[in-house]
């Protein structure tokens, strides 16, 4: 008897959606002590599958047909009260967003104790909660139990979630992208924790992810989903190294490869030099003490014309602040920003204006960085028009640029919401290029995108860079992406650049301890995606 058996599961989408079924004909089994990874891009139906097992589907998405069995018990035939009793007891779930998955007003100890109490196991809850918190390697369980979620870091919260899910030793643990919102080093710790607990207790884990690195790190078996169907299923090693279905092959080919040996660009004159840049955020008022947090401490680096410098680091390391300082979205308090020989830092608004067009920025969130009430053509042409280009000419240029980023010219007269995330990011790139910049600052431009879209956007950036001889400052938290696109990388930690050098050198021989830790945490480090056949 399998731990979990899903047979021919079909879940309907509400009428008017882009397809009739959220998932269709899904069949999979999970044995005790096994980790099954369900991989797919956003909208492929992997979360729907997990929620169907838990009985947590929203009302608009009913299960239409198929069988769901947990430990031989038919889940679909159960009354909702019976199903509730199973949830948290025999099957438990952890979620993607540790920041919002815990009740902000309740102490975490109470939230774990609640899981015990609602299943009639609240007898010695207080002691049990501390045991559980200790089991997920949280320091000082007594203090953590009394904390509210906002006092804990993302990684700590995810550990609390895991402790809560494991409270009643469930046979099945469903993990829905549990590490996607975490930093790479934290992600590795959580993956190890799930592995360790699963092997110690023989829990079966249904692990949902979009990241093949994570799959390589943790999976025993893999199921690949596309458009609501499972297109390929098999042992991890087999699927990862010898994928059969074209979609799996395409997904794996899109995974950024490690640091390729690349020729350093020939020496070129310097375009940007940043010296001793410093920025401190502080908070406080008349009546309370000031709290200050150094965001950037004495950053020094230079960029030669035509070069791409990657700035990598975890959240809070100051890499985005650094990018924002250079375009004066954030005003640093000390240092020099020499652009083509001129120090930009002391310049006034008017003094900055000629440089605005020469330095352009691409932002992370393609949903938030375009004005939803503005036609795409207008958005692209706006910058050049403000800088004095005649309107007709600016619109012509916008049309050319849309072609350059491989969008149809009809996009000019449409609104941003009509485009997908990847298309919007292309629009963002076209908008930046419309100013004919010399320096392009890209702040996590592909982090919000699915892996296949991410590969396309990265290819586009590389192409454009070559065509226009652009210099690029590329901010990312994803080391694999940095390895693929950057000539040199700078590693940031707590506001300081701890290591800088040619990409292949830094990746092969990291000198700083933090860089070493960062590289060791890349999921699936031992696995190299096979070349596309």
């Amino acid at each position: 008897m399998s731990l979990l058996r899903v047979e021919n599961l079909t879940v309907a989408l509400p009428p008017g959606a882009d397809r009739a079924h959220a998932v269709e004909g899904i069949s999979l089994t999970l044995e005790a002590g096994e980790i099954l990874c369900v991989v797919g891009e956003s909208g492929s139906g992997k979360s729907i599958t997990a929620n169907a097992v838990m009985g947590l589907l929203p009302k608009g998405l009913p299960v239409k047909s198929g069988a769901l069995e947990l430990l031989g018990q038919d889940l679909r035939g159960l009354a909702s009260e019976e199903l509730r009793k199973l949830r948290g007891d025999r099957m438990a779930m952890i979620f993607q967003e540790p920041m919002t998955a815990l009740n902000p007003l309740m102490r975490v100890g109470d939230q774990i104790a609640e899981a015990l109490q609602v299943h009639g196991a609240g007898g010695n809850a207080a002691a049990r909660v501390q045991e559980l918190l200790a089991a997920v390697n949280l320091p000082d369980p007594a203090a953590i139990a009394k904390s509210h979620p906002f006092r804990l870091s993302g990684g700590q919260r995810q550990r609390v979630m895991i402790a809560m899910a494991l409270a009643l030793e469930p046979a099945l643990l469903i993990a829905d992208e549990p590490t996607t919102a975490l930093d790479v080093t934290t992600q590795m710790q959580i993956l190890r924790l799930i592995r360790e607990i699963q092997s110690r207790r023989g829990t079966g884990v249904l692990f949902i992810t979009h990241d093949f690195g994570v799959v390589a790190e943790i999976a025993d078996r893999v199921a690949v989903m596309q458009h609501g169907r499972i297109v390929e299923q098999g042992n991890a090693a087999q699927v990862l190294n010898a994928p059969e279905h074209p979609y799996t092959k395409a997904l794996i080919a899109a995974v950024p490869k490690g640091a390729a040996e690349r020729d350093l660009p020939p020496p070129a004159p310097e375009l940007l030099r940043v010296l001793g840049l410093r920025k401190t955020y502080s908070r406080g008022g008349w009546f309370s003490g000031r709290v200050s947090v150094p965001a950037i401490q004495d950053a020094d680096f230079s960029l030669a014309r035509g070069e791409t410098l990657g700035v990598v680091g975890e959240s809070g390391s100051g890499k985005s602040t650094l990018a924002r300082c250079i375009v004066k979205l954030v005003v640093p308090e000390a240092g020099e920003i020499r652009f083509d020989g001129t120090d930009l830092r002391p310049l006034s608004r008017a003094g900055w204006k000629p440089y605005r067009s020469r330095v352009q920025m691409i932002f992370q969130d393609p949903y938030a960085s375009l004005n939803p009430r503005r036609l795409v053509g207008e958005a692209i042409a706006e910058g050049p028009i403000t800088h004095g280009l005649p309107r007709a000419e600016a619109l012509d240029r916008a049309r050319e640029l849309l072609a350059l980023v491989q969008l149809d010219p009809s996009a000019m007269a449409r609104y941003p919401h009509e485009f997908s995330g990847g298309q919007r990011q292309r629009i963002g790139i076209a908008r930046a290029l419309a100013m004919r910049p010399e320096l392009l600052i890209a702040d996590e431009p592909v982090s919000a995108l699915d892996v296949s879209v991410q590969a396309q956007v990265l290819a586009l950036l590389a192409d454009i860079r070559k065509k226009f001889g652009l210099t690029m400052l590329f901010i990312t938290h994803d080391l694999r992406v940095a390895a693929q696109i950057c000539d040199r990388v700078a590693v940031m930690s707590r506001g300081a650049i701890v290591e800088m050098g040619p990409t292949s050198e830094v990746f092969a021989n990291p000198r700083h301890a933090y860089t070493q830790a960062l590289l060791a945490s890349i999921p699936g480090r031992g696995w190299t995606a096979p070349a596309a056949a």
Partner: protein
Amino acid sequence: MEAGKLPGFLARRLLKAVAVVLAIVICNFFLVHAAPGDPASVMAGQSGAADAVFMEQLRRQFGLDQPLHVQLWIYLKSVLTLDLGFSHRQQMGVAALIMERLPATLLLTGAAFAFAVVGGVTLGALAAQRVGSWADSFITILALTFYATPLFWVGLMLVLVFSVWLEWLPSFGMSSVGAGYEGWAHVWDVAQHLLLPALTLGLFYLAVYARLTRATMLEVQDQDFVKTARAKGVPEGRITRAHVLRNAMLPVITFAGIQAGQLVGGSILVETVFAWPGIGRLAFEALLARDYAVLLGVFFCTSVIVVLFNLATDLLYAIIDPRVEVG
């Protein structure tokens, strides 16, 4: 909030509060004196015949012939010693006059407040739980009606229905004149008198709370931690109480703080319609009679209450929501 920070926080806030009240006192003084006419002219008018000499004498008697800044200085000094002055019209100390009327107002507004909060939150929670059903539509329409209807009209209609047609409830005053009830009979008598004015005063806020609670509960219901609770097998009733409602209460508390501050000053209309012997009516009468001392006293008293309620709301917020830092 950490308990250790509390005394310092309170001390700082009280200091700020004193500064705010002082500023209000000064503003009020100038506002009142900017209005045309003074007590002397009103008194002279009411006594039937007056000549300039008599007016001059009255003004000197009340200190109204002094320059404005001297009057302000005298007033500030007395307020700082909590001496609110003397009402020549009522022939009573202003402080005593206010203290005599304050309990009636607090009873009325307290009852209205409790009615609005309890009723509004209950209705809002019910509507949110049954969203889309006829119960939801009914509650929403009811709330919208209360929200849009003017207070005095609601008051008059309630009097018309319950006092005039049905003769169930008394239409004015705080207790039956000359009945001389004692003990529980008196309490029952006051409660009957209280019902209509408290309803009138509370209905608007009831509507606001119902709408606010419904909207925030619907929003909170979709949040991740509610799904977490469901995933760990928490029964629906407990999810609503322990997870959804508690989080949905935060904006309601913010608004309740604003209402609590307004209740004392905002009851003038209802007190007048129902002849309720409270501060609102005192202020209204004092305004008509240009009784500066009483008017300023009432303003002072209500501003202190507003400031205190704001402080209480902030404290309550910090206790309920641990993310709010005091300081």
